[in-house]
Every structure is written in structure tokens, then in C-alpha cells.
């Protein structure tokens, strides 16, 4: 196993919650940190409940985000109110930070397309499963904003695997040439399903790829939410004011399987996982809050209880909502259904009709 590179890694807080760069803390209030802590915990509880629902046959599938909560929530909170966000599919924390309703994401993973409807005013694009294609969407939105003279920034988030896609090259090159207000965040969670990042690229870091496109690159400890938040925020500010695009690599780790249909133990050893067990993003912030802001067990217990109840409420709303009509799966792709899908649709409706008789 390759030694984890620490090259140019931006860190504010070490894994024990000790501050290594005090200057970054100046711009962050205690209430901001509590909000980060709350959202990270909510994301984790929401995620583990979804996994449980899936294993009970109550949810279609899920791409677990455990371990990446700091990258998620940090970048989501860093976005300005008018900024756009183009997620892939492992950014629940960032989407919650933008106001996306958690029960809607349950619906999405439960197979109900209505859960993918963009929330009006959130400026969050729908989940993008196609790897890397949304980097181009982000570049396009940024270009449009620049042409209209709007002072906004756009951010995409994708995984390490997306950096091997042609779309990644096109989007970064375009952003560099046209000087677009866009930040491409890469959650380097070390795995593209079963392909480790060492096999993804021969570059030492993903951030250094920015160099080739003439844009700024930054590499951040993705399990350090303060570093994620402050770095991404700075990059977004510069993108917005100076039209300077950037690539930011958030170094984190996917602690679970790729999705519920995967079994990471087939390609990932315990030894690989071990170094990351001690770098948990939530533990880290809790240690800091305990040491510096009087966070204690009672507050912790109260928060977890409150968030668990919120999650249970989401489950109720998700499971209580009427099922989508079965023919929904045929909608939204074709304006006019091709013959084979028309045939399938008719067959399905007939069977549903028969079953209801």
C-alpha cells in the first residue's frame, strides 16, 4: 500500500482536534461550528438509517457517505446564497446544507423519481449518477453567469474516479480558457467502486492536475471540516469576484461499501481501512468543541436524540407518502416514447390492472 501523500495538504485541525493553523479560525464563529457539527451528525444518522432501511427491503439502494461528512457539509456551507451547486450522488450533507429536504433524498433512493425534483430556489442541481458529466453542467452554468454579468459562483462535487473522465478535462479546460467562476471540488475518498486512487492516476495528487489547466488547485484534509469550509469558501469568493476557477481536492475516505450492492471486503483489507478509523471527521470536531467550547456528554446525548427523532420523522414522511404511479418510470426521458417502451408501459399497466382486479 502506498504511503498517503501529505503534499500541500491544508489542515486547520489535526485528527485529535488540535488547531494547527489558528489564522483560519478567525472567520469562523462558534455558532458556525455547532451548525457544522449538527449537520455532520444528521448526515451520518440519516445515512445509517437509510442503510438499515435498505437491508430491510424498505429502500432501493444507497451510496453510503460515512466518513465523508466533513467534506460534504463543509463545502455545502461554504456556498454563497446565490451560488449554484452540482452534486454527484454522495453529497447528502452538502445538499442538506443547501436546504434539500432529507425525506426527498430518501424518496430518490427509494426509487421514486419525484425525490429528484430540484428544490425551488435551492440552486442545487439533481443528483447526477453519470460520473463526471455534471462538471460540464457546472462550467456551463458558470459561463452563463459570467455572460450575464452575475456575481455568483458555481461548484461541482465529484469523486476521484471522475478525474479520469473526458468530461473532467473538458470542463476544467473550458473553465480555464474562459476564466469561469467555478470551483470543481473532488471528494477523493480513495475508491472508485473497487478501483483505488493509486490506480486512478499516476499524479501524486489530484489537486496538481489544476496546473495543466492554468487554474488554481488546492488540496485539503477532507476530514477537517474547518479546513474544508474555509478553503472552499475562499476559492468560491475568488471565483465570484475575479472569475478565477479552481480545483479543490478534499482528501477523505469512503468508510463503507460503494453502494449497498457492493461488498468492499472483497477488494479492501482491514489494514487499508485502519489508518482512517482514527481520522473520523465527526470525532475530530467533537474533540475540539469539547476542549474549547464546553461541549459535553449531555449536550451530545441531547443532540443525537433530537437528530434521531428528525430522521425518524423523515422515514415516516418517506414511507407514508403515496407510492408513485408505476408508469412514472417511463416519464421524463423521452418526449415521445419509442415503441418498445410503449409496449412495456402497456404491459405493465395491464399487469397492474389485473393485479388490482
Amino acid at each position, binding site marked *: 500500500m502506498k504511503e498517503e501523500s501529505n503534499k500541500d495538504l491544508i489542515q486547520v485541525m489535526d485528527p485529535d482536534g488540535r488547531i494547527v493553523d489558528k489564522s483560519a479560525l478567525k472567520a469562523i464563529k462558534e455558532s458556525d461550528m455547532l451548525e457544522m457539527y449538527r449537520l455532520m451528525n444528521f448526515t451520518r444518522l440519516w445515512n445509517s*438509517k437509510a442503510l*438499515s432501511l*435498505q*437491508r*430491510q*427491503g*424498505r429502500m*432501493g*439502494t444507497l451510496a453510503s457517505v460515512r466518513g465523508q461528512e466533513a467534506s460534504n457539509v463543509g463545502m455545502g456551507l461554504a456556498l454563497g446564497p446565490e451560488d449554484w451547486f452540482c452534486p454527484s450522488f454522495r453529497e447528502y450533507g452538502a445538499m442538506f446544507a443547501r436546504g434539500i429536504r432529507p425525506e426527498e433524498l430518501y424518496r430518490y433512493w*427509494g*426509487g421514486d423519481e419525484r425525490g429528484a425534483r430540484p428544490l425551488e430556489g435551492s440552486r442545487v442541481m439533481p443528483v447526477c449518477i453519470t460520473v463526471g458529466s455534471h462538471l460540464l453542467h457546472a462550467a456551463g452554468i458558470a459561463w452563463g453567469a459570467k455572460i450575464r454579468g452575475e456575481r455568483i459562483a458555481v461548484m461541482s462535487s465529484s469523486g476521484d474516479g471522475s478525474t479520469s473522465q473526458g468530461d473532467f478535462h473538458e470542463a476544467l479546460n473550458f473553465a480555464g480558457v474562459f476564466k469561469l467562476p467555478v470551483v470543481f471540488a473532488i471528494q477523493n475518498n480513495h475508491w472508485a467502486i473497487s478501483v483505488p486512487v493509486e490506480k486512478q492516476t499516476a499524479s501524486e495528487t489530484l489537486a496538481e492536475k489544476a496546473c495543466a489547466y492554468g487554474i488554481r488547485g488546492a488540496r485539503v484534509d477532507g476530514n477537517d471540516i474547518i479546513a474544508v469550509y474555509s478553503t472552499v469558501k475562499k476559492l468560491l469568493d475568488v471565483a465570484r469576484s475575479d472569475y478565477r476557477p479552481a480545483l479543490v481536492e478534499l482528501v477523505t475516505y469512503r468508510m463503507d*461499501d460503494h*453502494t*449497498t*450492492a*457492493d*461488498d468492499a*471486503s*472483497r477488494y479492501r483489507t482491514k489494514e487499508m481501512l485502519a489508518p482512517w478509523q482514527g481520522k473520523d471527521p465527526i470525532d475530530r470536531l467533537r474533540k475540539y468543541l469539547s476542549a474549547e467550547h464546553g461541549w459535553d456528554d449531555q449536550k451530545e446525548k441531547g443532540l443525537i436524540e433530537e437528530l434521531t427523532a428528525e430522521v425518524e420523522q423523515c422515514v*415516516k414522511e418517506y*414511507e*407514508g*407518502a*403515496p*407510492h408513485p*404511479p*408505476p408508469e412514472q418510470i417511463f416519464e421524463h426521458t423521452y418526449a415521445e416514447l419509442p415503441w*418498445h417502451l410503449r*409496449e*412495456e408501459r402497456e*404491459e*405493465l399497466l395491464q*399487469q*397492474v390492472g*389485473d*393485479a*388490482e382486479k
Partner: protein
Amino acid sequence: MREVFRLPDVGEGIAQAEIVEYLVNVGDSVKADQNVVRIETDKAVVELPSPFAGTVAEIPHEPGDTVNVGDALLVIETEAKAAEEKTEQREKPATEKPEKPEKRPAERPRAVEKTEKPTAEAPPAETAPAERVMATPHTRRLARELGVDINIVKGSGPHGRITDEDVRQAVSRVPSAPPKAPTAAAVQAPATAGFDFEKYGPTRRVPLKGVRKRIAEVMARSVSTIPHVAHFDEADVTELLQVVARERSLAESRGIKLTILSFLAKAAAAGLKKHPMVNSSLDEETGELVFKDYINIGIATDTEAGLMVPVVRDVDRKSILEIAADLQELSKKARDRTIDLEDLRGGTFTITNVGAIGGTWATPIILHPQVAILASMRATKRPVVRDDHVVVRTMMPLTLSFDHRVLDGADSGRFINHVKELLEDPLRMLVDVA
């Protein structure tokens, strides 16, 4: 209340799983979302959390057992209150009809289900449900094309999915009800499968599509279905060519290009009328000969996209100039791809005038489900014997390929003789042809 935790589809389309280990024993109390059993699917080993809080009442399996999606994994005795809440939650959706989960493919499989069911309800999941067969649209189309009822095909793919191969095998297994014209290409595995063309040098691949693909299918079907016989003859067209030359200006004055092909079509129509067997088809399904009271002759036409066969209708009822006019229009439409599909259908016989390009002999392939095709080759001046003298005449070779299931050599001979007589003596056409 007793609640049953059934095996859900935990892996995007698994059908069954093996029990690795139960993490609880009968009598244990369990919390909701507590892991209770570890299972192995073909994708992963996963731990399943209980959807219910309560006491383990029954463990119906042992480690090593294989269970299907929908089978009971665990029975849990819940507190009544908790159970009521559950019921309330589940019954809320307005669109939900009385539960018949086994018959509702549109709904995701229900892992959570009460054991106390009225007996009048649908049968339990364990009895094989009448499911929609699984097959891709491509396989379904293949089945339609081969005349196979996909509902009776046994699937060998994952979760009983029907594969193309299953459909093809079903074709070969049902001799009593032969499918409509199975194609050679469809029945056998492609002979070129796994053939390494690149081994011998660089290659270039172009997909077979459109007209070309259609020709490939039709020809393969024809050759694999029809026992072909080719009957050769030649006609002395010396006088006919003189007639064509003489009447050409009349035709041109009406904007029509007159060629020997129109005469050939007319002569063939006369032959077909006299020998209706040659104008028939074999209904392979019923084993009946279908005699047609109409004579529509397809004319094989070379186009950029490949061979097309536009059909001149009612040739027996048209004058030679009318036939020539039709031919002219149809071949133009075929060449610039504006031809209607209807103009390519309904032929009862085909003429291919390969001679326009060249060649002395050919053995054309019959356009299934017709039973014969006539090829006219290049007419050339040749020394022939007339009244014991060698003279120079313009001879046109003819080949009739025929379906030996329907016609014999004698039928073919008589037909060709008649066509030949008319071609050799154009006046006969005037006298004898309607």
C-alpha cells in the same frame, strides 16, 4: 403480534441468498434496526437489521440454507402497540389497494408483512407466483420474429431471465408447430463468432444496417428454408431487339424509356398465368399452397444502399409501355430512396436483370415466400445452329431458380419454354397475350 421479516432484495436484483449466521437466538429481545442475521448473496455478505422491536419467536432456517427473496428470515413477537403503529403507517397511502404483493410487479417487494392474513387473500409467496417473464426488449422481439410465445420459454439467465439463446432453443424444440421462417442466422450461433480477422492483417468494421441488413436477413432465411433448383435456358432475342429499337421513339415521345425488361416482364406474366403454380406460395404453417389471382412482378433494382425490389402491379393487365412507365418510376424512386414501403411489398414473382451489368450465368436466390425468380443475363451475339446452318443470333441466357418443394423441373421447363417462345417471337405476344 407476530411479524415476519422476509428476505428483501438487498443487492439491486438478487433472487436468493445463503444464511451465513443468525446473530440472535429464539427468545432474545431485539431492537429495531439491530442486526439479526448475516447473509451472503452473489454480490456481498451483508448483515440485515430487524425492522421490528420485540422478541425472536422463530428462526425458520439454519446457517447454510438458501432462501429466496420473499422467504421468511425471522419471526418476531412484537408488542401490540408497536405493531399497531406499524399497521397504521403502512395503510396510510391512498393509492394502496388491498395487499396482493405477489401479483404486483410494480411495487417493490415487501419485506415486511404480517402473518395474520385472511385466507381469502392471495396465496403465500412460497407458491410460485404467476410472474411476468423477464426478457429484454431485444429478446422479446426475437421471440416475436421467430414466432415463439415468450411466456412458455424457460429462462436460463439470472433470476430466470430469458436469453436470446433460450428463445432460439425453444424454436428448435417445437417441431409440431414450426415457427414462421426461422433464419439460419438466428437458429445457429454466428459462424464468425470469435473469428480473429485481425490476425491476418488490419481490418475495418462497418455495421450491417438498413437495406443491407434486411437483404442479409431475407437471403439467409430464403436459402435456409427453400430447396433451390436452378434451371438454365437461353432465348433468341434477335427479333425482339429489333422491335425494341423500332418502338423506342414512340416510347420516348411519351417520356418512357423502353427496354427489353418490359417485354420480359410481360412474357413472364403470361407464363405465370398459364402456370399458376409458379405464381403461388407455400404457407409453411398450414402446409397449404396459396394460389394468387394477381400477378405482381418485383424487379430487382441496384441502388446505392443495396438491392431493392420494387413491385410492378398487375403486369398481366398492363401494356408493355405501361409496364415500362411503371418500371421507370419505381426504379427512380428506389434509387433516390423516396419509394413507399407498399411499393416494395406484395410481389408474386421476381425478375432480376443481371444482364444489364453483365454475366453469362447466375443462380439467383428466391425472394421468400415466392417460389421462383427469373434472372436474365447479358444478351450477346453468338453462333447458333438454325436449319443446320450456323448463324449469328443475339442470345439471352435465362435462369429460373425455383422452390423444389412446390415445383419440379418439368414445371419449370414448361414455364420457361412459354416465356422463351414469346420472347423469341414478339408477334406471338400480340396474338396470345392478354
